[in-house]
């Protein structure tokens, strides 16, 4: 199954009731999957919106009345969604937003890129807020994290972004779906369902009272701290004896893994560190690894965005190199291997078996 369809199926199995989207390559298969499979489900709704701005605001509405809702797009469309995401964050409304990102800036290319890292991990829109950002690196993980995204969104009442890329969306791999679609989900207690037997409720972001706004920011901040503590996810591969550790996320981590296997075959002691949550960023784990290895090589399909989070985590301790390919170019494992080897030898690192 292709990655886009896998997200669609996993969303339906997670109880997604509403999907609103606008066509853009390379994520159309997801919109089309929902048109075929969600639109006719009982109690569910699919709309091809007239724009990404409308789609995210439809999500806002559906979430306000308590439905599990999702939208998806690719880079240029994500820019249009940012206003809506800021409002979702402010109103503490859960939502799942998928970005099968492509090469930018501007209309750019439709080929896979990772240049939306800053936009995704820094909130993206205006105001002081964060979104949880999940970065899968296989079709199976796309499906698993889609399910998880819905749970996290509800649990913390926060928008969750799944940051994939064109390649993950288009690629086909076998997938197991571990859940059946629930018959019925409980309605969130904060949903607007009419003031029947209770006082009326409001969803709003505007206030003339600055101290009220400050309090909202503080309460969001405390929740963000809790998320940082509890939900940071991370994977490592062959790091125990590694002299050099590659730090990469998403599909780049996959390509790096291929390179690392070849490097190991040549006797280079190289490992991989892969953040699965980009926000919260696994700074603590990166710092630990930097203490055991001689150096880190950050590899991204952009000009160095996660690199800044790695540098922030290290606070000037430890040596960090960078290799980046922007614009939608997909480097091959052997290109990454060449960069690994160059740094390895230049740094005079020891070989092993």
């Amino acid at each position, binding site marked *: 199954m292709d990655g886009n369809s896998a997200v669609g199926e996993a969303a339906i199995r997670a109880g997604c009731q509403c999907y609103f989207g606008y066509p853009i*390559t390379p994520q159309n298969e997801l919109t089309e999957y929902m048109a075929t499979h969600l639109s006719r489900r009982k109690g569910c709704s699919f709309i091809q919106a007239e724009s990404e701005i409308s789609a995210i605001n439809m999500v806002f509405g559906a979430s306000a009345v308590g439905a599990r809702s999702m939208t998806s797009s690719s880079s240029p469309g994500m820019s249009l969604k940012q206003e809506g995401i800021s409002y979702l964050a402010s109103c503490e409304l859960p939502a799942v937003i998928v970005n099968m990102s492509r090469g930018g800036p501007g209309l750019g290319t439709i080929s896979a890129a990772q240049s939306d890292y800053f936009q995704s991990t820094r909130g993206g829109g205006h105001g002081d807020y964060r979104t949880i950002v999940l970065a899968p690196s296989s079709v199976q993980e796309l499906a698993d994290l889609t399910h998880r995204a819905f749970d996290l969104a509800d649990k913390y009442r926060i928008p969750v972004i799944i940051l994939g890329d064109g390649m993950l969306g288009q690629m086909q791999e076998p997938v197991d779906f571990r859940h059946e679609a629930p018959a019925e989900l409980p309605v969130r207690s904060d949903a607007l369902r009419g003031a029947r037997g209770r006082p009326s409720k409001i969803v709003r972001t505007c206030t003339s009272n600055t101290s009220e706004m400050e309090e909202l920011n503080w309460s969001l901040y405390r929740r963000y701290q809790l998320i940082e503590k509890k939900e940071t996810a991370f994977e490592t591969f062959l790091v125990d004896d590694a002299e050099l550790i590659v730090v990469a996320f998403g599909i780049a981590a996959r390509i790096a*893994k291929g390179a690392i296997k070849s490097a190991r075959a040549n006797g280079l002691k190289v490992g991989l560190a892969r953040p699965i949550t980009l926000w919260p960023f696994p700074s603590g784990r990166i710092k630990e690894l930097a203490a055991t290895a001689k150096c880190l090589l950050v590899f991204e399909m952009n000009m160095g965005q996660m690199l800044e989070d790695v540098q922030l985590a290290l606070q000037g301790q430890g040596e960090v190199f960078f290799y980046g390919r922007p614009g939608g170019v997909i480097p091959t494992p052997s290109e990454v291997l060449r960069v690994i080897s160059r740094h390895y030898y230049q740094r005079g690192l020891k070989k092993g078996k």
Partner: protein
Amino acid sequence: MLIKTIFAGFGGQGVLSMGLNLAEAAMLEGKNVTFLPSYGVEVRGGTANCTVAVSDEEIASPVASAPEFVVAMNQPSLVRFQNQVQSGGVLFYNASLVNPQNPRGDIELVGVPAGEIAEKLDSPKSANMVMLGAFARKTNIVSMDTVAEVLSTILKNKAKLVSINKKALKAGYDLF
């Protein structure tokens, strides 16, 4: 053992279905697989290609730096991919359309007159299946039976298409 193959040709030559068939067959045989197609504008521009990785272990990169096998259904694909084939690998080409000019001595060239054979079978569109049959025979990545089984599931209700394509597969398989 990790084996990567690139299938390439004009849009409309059924290049992606060849790759998909191989990937699904390998999956049925219990292997790990990835199928990575080219998409979008690139496809409208007239060329299509896909990379299939088959392995007993977890597949790290779905991208191929140096594929073991390349299948070139037209001349531009041959030119584009012939230098990528791993030393000791095999380059299959559609001898009906492609004129091999490969100066490399370290790979094997296999010409399959896929176009002509398909014409003879009265179904020019199934040249891709002739090629896939020959490919399955030569590479032994998957068994012919599984490939045929996949064909039947993909083309579910279209008995006529299934039988034409199976004939084409067999014609390719019987070449070697």
